[in-house]
């Protein structure tokens, strides 16, 4: 029987635990990605995390995929910090120069983004340089001012990153406890099997004594 578990996972309840952990993989590792993000990169991150676990159970797989998602969120938020600075820089340039009315903030923002990446065309570079002259600022001055301007939002993004770190810590502890539990159960099984074999040997010996 197939169950459709959250996000479209197909789990057959008659499968072994190992098979189930494998079947959980496509479900949990098919995350909601942004249009410019690579799914192959996400999957390779997940696989490398899973490879560190020795025979992971389905629950461990589920927790590791959540952990991988947290790492992905940290990446997104780190990019956002830089984007916030770009936004603030464009805003400051627009306010200071005559571009506020003309090309608008978004055009300036796009031009600035390309200028900072080094991929701007002549017009964009000219627009930014003109705006910098209008504002009577150098690029580094502008960056410092923008940092001050966007401090509130940058602090928010730092909080978001910190939250992801805390979540990762929780998940790590949970994975450790599952691992410990499964090892304990395996060890108890082995001890039980050893005891049973001893008992059976003793039983056989006592039967032999009686018969002789």
């Amino acid at each position, binding site marked *: 029987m197939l169950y459709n578990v959250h996000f479209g996972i197909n789990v057959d309840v008659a499968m072994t635990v190992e098979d189930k952990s494998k079947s959980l993989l496509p479900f949990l590792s098919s995350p909601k990605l942004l249009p410019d993000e690579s799914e192959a990169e996400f999957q390779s991150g997940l696989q490398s995390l899973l490879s560190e676990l020795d025979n992971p159970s389905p629950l461990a797989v589920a927790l590791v995929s959540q952990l991988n998602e947290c790492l992905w969120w940290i990446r997104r938020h780190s990019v956002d910090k830089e984007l916030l600075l770009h936004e603030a820089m464009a805003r400051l340039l627009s306010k200071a120069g005559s571009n506020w009315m003309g090309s608008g903030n978004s055009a300036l923002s796009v031009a600035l983004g390309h200028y900072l990446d080094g991929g701007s065309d002549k017009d964009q570079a000219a627009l930014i340089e003109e705006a910098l002259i209008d504002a009577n600022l150098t690029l580094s001055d502008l960056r410092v001012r923008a940092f001050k301007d966007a401090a509130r939002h940058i602090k928010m993004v730092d909080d978001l990153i910190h939250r992801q770190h805390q979540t990762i810590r929780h998940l790590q502890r949970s994975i450790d406890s599952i691992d410990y*539990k499964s090892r304990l159960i395996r060890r108890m099984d082995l001890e039980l099997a050893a005891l049973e074999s001893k008992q059976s040997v003793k039983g056989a010996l006592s039967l032999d004594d009686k018969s002789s």
Partner: protein
Amino acid sequence: MTINPRRNLANRCNALKSTGPRSVVGKWTSSQNSRKHGLNSAPDFESSIEYQALVELIAEEGFSAFACADIAAGLLNYRRVMDAYYDTYTGPEPVDEFLRDANMKTSNPIFSELLSPSGSEPQDVREMAAFFASMQRQERRKGGPVSRRSSDTHKLIRYQRNGIARLSRAVRQG
């Protein structure tokens, strides 16, 4: 502030004129008006097939029935929070570029005629200009799309904290 009985009566009469939603569907729709992410509503995981399948999977790992139920609910709850987190991140409130970039006196011919440089325009025009300016300030304070999505997702931190704490507790106590 004292309540004027006549004003009170007039308010009540006027309130009767406003109909509001009458049908069941209309009432349900308007009840969702202020819904932002839905994380404050109590979820019903137990009746979902995802929950049953997860419980069966976790049970095979040697957890007790209570622990299985707790872990499955914790995992689904955490996923619910993270889905809302993603939706909030990808769909921030759009930037009103006109409001943000507009200069009222120069861009709007009606206002440029009404607003005189000496400030001798009528009171209602001045009030309208002040209202527009305050809307514009608000819009600019919210920042661009990245600032908006950061502040929107920041509001979900506490749900994420509670969700992961619940899941982690369930797994470790199981």
